[in-house]
């Protein structure tokens, strides 16, 4: 297998390569999932940047480009796999390069919402197929035959009846003269030989020997490091600051007041710039800042919960309604009601937030790990009034993202510092900065009411969500967007159903966190469905199946997880099982948690995941992502939380914001449904049902219902 590097390659045309001695195929994006395929081989001029997806040289060397930033989700390999499938080349014999950031050449490159594969599957197939057809046409001409008599396989075109073969490299010159088709013939999925195979990821060997470059690893000549003191109360304003002592630290060059934009709000700070990270940190410790904090110090999480409980009495905005909840619920003889609390969470990617920017008169350059490279270009263009073409974005592997790296705040601040200092500036957030500043996953209160009819079936369900809305954090809007309702399973056939949301606004910043509102709502929803099943005296998995009997995909994953987890086999008296389901980013997941009582302690023991994500590109990635989702879901269920005390975040580092460790990791078994449906997202799907499956399992073992996260496992 060839190794590869992860640094984005800006491949410029060399004079020697200008005679059509290569085949380069790319596209012009037309909307989110559409594109026009173009032959770039002929349009290339010396010194111009070549932005293809497919590059084949006369030596037969194939380079495929991945245009999606990689943060662990595996698209570095998966995007080229899709192209390779249709191009008919050996995936283990190609080179993968990370493409530059350019929305005009590569379309959307923001990696959020598990959409890399589902939005690019068709485009990438067309790309590979169009290039293959060009090679086949060139070959047919040489064979003096029709294209239909030729076959492409492993980098060769074969004339089927005579058995003559020509390699892609030999055909490149002729193929580069042809026009690509925009509706090339695609393979029948039953013929896939790359898609659906667990192909080793090419980025992994780089990550086992220290070679992989992350944003934090980049250095340029003349750069300074920044460490920034921000208001621990989020919105404090700088009245004055004294930097004399900080400036005495050797290596410290400048002290600047700065700010960063967080969802339209300006957050002030004071930065120390030095010639090393350690000097910047030492200088920062010697800073004296006078803050105007107003009443920000009075904020506590408890106050927020009081406010949310009060708000739960409001009707709010109705997102879905069927039947007549109020009347039927009123008259029902068998009704239940519950509140569920989920806390703020930090993203805490292992690579702390960082970015390097160089702002000069006529050019801006960015280096770093980001989920949204083109967003940075637009942001900087607007901030400095500079044409986007003069802004160069160099993005790297990310040491985790989970949503945090889709925001512009880190770049906004360091760009300001570079403009003030006149040199490239790299900011590295400390872990305390990361955990103390957010933005966080929103905390939320869920209020649920339901009733069971005389036959023991669900009759009414009212789910009300009380929380902040990521898209509605400032301004005067009073209604939340439907985005806050993710993770509620509206497909359950419950005759009287209502889904409401109540918007809360305050200064604590929130943002997208792996699976977003699904991670909070699904806990409440799937716990309450379990409570209803218990009230009805029904098996919780069967109770769900009855309500989803007309939903093929949900039913399928439920039945699969039942089989794989031995659901119907009565467990021993020290074992409990719980189930939960979700639809996230198009994928359907059913998850069974098994807990055991071992020496009096509750131990999360085994998690069985059944996932239907449509066509699978790399099954091992689906397994890896599902394993990761379970671990992160469990961490949020009983290890970590962000709380506010005296206006500031009570947690500072991993000593208080606890992550799950190896010794406490349960077994995770992942089962993938074979499907010919369109491929869907897998990076988040197994996270939402993890917590409710766990707490439902604990209920089945102990009879204790957990309605507030995080809970203490040793206190159950």
């Amino acid at each position, binding site marked *: 297998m060839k190794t590869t590097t992860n640094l984005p390659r800006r491949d410029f045309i060399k004079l020697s390569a200008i005679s059509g001695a290569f085949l380069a195929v790319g596209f012009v994006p037309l909307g989110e999932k559409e594109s026009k395929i173009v032959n770039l081989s002929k349009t290339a001029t010396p010194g111009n940047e070549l932005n293809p997806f497919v590059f084949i040289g006369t030596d037969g060397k194939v380079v495929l480009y991945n245009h999606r930033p990689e*943060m*662990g*989700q*595996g698209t570095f390999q998966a995007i080229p796999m899709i192209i390779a499938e249709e191009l008919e080349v050996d995936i283990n014999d190609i080179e993968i390069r990370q493409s530059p950031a350019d929305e005009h050449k590569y379309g959307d490159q923001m990696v959020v919402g598990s959409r890399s594969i589902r939005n690019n599957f068709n485009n990438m197939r067309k790309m590979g197929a169009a290039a293959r057809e060009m090679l086949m046409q060139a070959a047919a001409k040489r064979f003096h035959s029709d294209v239909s008599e030729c076959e492409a396989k492993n980098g060769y075109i074969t004339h089927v009846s005579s058995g003559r073969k020509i390699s892609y490299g030999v055909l490149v010159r002729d193929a580069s003269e042809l026009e690509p088709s925009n509706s090339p013939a695609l393979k029948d999925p039953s013929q896939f030989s790359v898609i659906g195979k667990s192909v*080793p990821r090419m*980025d*992994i*060997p780089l*990550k*086992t*020997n*220290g*070679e*992989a470059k*992350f944003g*934090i*690893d980049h*250095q340029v000549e003349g750069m300074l490091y920044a460490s920034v003191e921000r208001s621990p109360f989020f919105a404090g304003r700088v009245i004055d600051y004294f930097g004399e*002592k900080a400036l*005495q*630290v*050797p290596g410290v060059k400048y002290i600047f007041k700065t700010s960063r934009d967080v969802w339209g709000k300006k957050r002030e700070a004071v930065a120390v710039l030095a010639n090393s*990270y*350690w*000097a910047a940190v*030492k200088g920062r410790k*010697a800073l004296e800042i006078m803050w105007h904090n107003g009443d920000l110090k009075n904020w506590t999480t408890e106050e927020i919960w009081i406010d949310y409980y009060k708000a739960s009495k409001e009707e709010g905005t109705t997102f879905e309604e069927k039947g007549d909840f109020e009347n039927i619920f009123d008259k029902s003889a068998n009704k239940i009601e519950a509140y569920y609390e989920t806390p703020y969470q930090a993203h*805490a*990617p*292992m*690579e*702390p937030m960082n970015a390097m920017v160089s702002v000069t008169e006529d050019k801006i350059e960015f280096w770093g790990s980001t989920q949204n490279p083109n967003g940075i270009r637009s942001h900087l263009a607007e901030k400095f009034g500079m044409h986007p073409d003069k802004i160069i974005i160099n993005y790297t*592997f*990310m*040491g*985790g*993202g*989970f949503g945090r790296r889709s925001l512009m705040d880190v770049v906004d601040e360091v760009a300001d510092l570079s403009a003030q200092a006149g040199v490239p500036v790299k900011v*590295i957030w*400390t*872990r305390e900065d990361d955990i103390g500043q957010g933005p966080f996953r929103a905390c939320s209160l869920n209020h649920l009411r339901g009733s069971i009819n005389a036959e023991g079936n669900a009759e009414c369900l009212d789910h009300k969500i009380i929380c902040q809305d990521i898209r509605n954090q400032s301004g005067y809007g009073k209604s939340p967007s439907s985005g806050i309702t993710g993770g509620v399973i509206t497909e359950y056939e419950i005759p009287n159903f209502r889904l409401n949301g109540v918007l809360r606004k305050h200064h604590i910043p929130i943002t997208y966190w792996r699976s977003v509102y699904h991670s909070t709502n699904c806990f409440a929803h799937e716990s309450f469905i379990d409570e209803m099943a218990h009230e009805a005296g029904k098996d919780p998995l069967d109770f769900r199946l009855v309500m989803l009997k007309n939903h093929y995909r949900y039913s399928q994953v439920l039945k699969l997880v039942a089989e794989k987890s031995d659901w119907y086999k009565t467990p021993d008296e020290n074992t409990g099982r719980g189930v939960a389901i979700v639809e996230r980013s198009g994928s359907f997941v059913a998850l069974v948690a098994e807990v055991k009582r071992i020496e009096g302690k509750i131990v999360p023991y085994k998690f069985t995941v059944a996932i239907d994500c449509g066509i699978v590109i790399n099954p*091992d990635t689906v397994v*890896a992502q599902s*394993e*990761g989702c*379970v*671990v*992160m879901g469990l*961490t949020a269920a009983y290890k970590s939380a962000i709380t506010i005390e005296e206006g500031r975040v009570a947690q500072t*580092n*991993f*000593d208080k914001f606890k*992550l*799950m*460790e*190896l*010794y406490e*990791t349960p*077994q*995770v078994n992942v089962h993938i449904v074979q499907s010919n449906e369109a491929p869907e997202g897998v990076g988040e799907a197994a996270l939402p049902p993890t917590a409710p499956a766990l707490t439902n399992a604990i209920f089945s073992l102990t009879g204790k219902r957990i309605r507030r996260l995080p809970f203490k496992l040793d206190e159950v």
Partner: protein
Amino acid sequence: MLKFYLNAEFCKLNGFVNYNTMGFYKLTVNGQLHSVEADPDTPLLWVLRDNLGLTGTKFSCGIAQCGACTVQINGDPVRSCVMPVSSAINSKIVTIEGLSIANSHPVQKAWIEEQVPQCGYCHSGQIMAAAALLEKNANPSDEEIHNGMRGVLCRCGTYPRVMKAIRKASAKISKS
């Protein structure tokens, strides 16, 4: 080796940071002797990364709570983010870059076979900790693996594969 000191007492009295403390330190890293100029309290991590360009060792928490910065010092796993450079002299330091040539260490091989890393950021530390563990105990029990890997965090949640890879590497090492 110290270049020169300002009167520490003077600094303390006047509330100044004692700044003229840069020193030269000789470090043996991956078999090579280096001389670096740094503040004595600079963590080894930043000397490795910024002075020596060995960026495979990662910063993540800065308080020895996550293990991303793990290197081996005289064969022991050490959190380089809290070890002052001044304490690292006269010892044999090995970083991920020096663990083997071309990913040939049994732990690295097992990591690739089991496709362990996702984002990959913590895995220099994971691998250095696992290699140190197996160096001392080639055939650890599950509990010994758990204890040896305490405090080495992974936010992507690759632990199920970390466990498999350590078992696999252990099997290979104890056979040979």
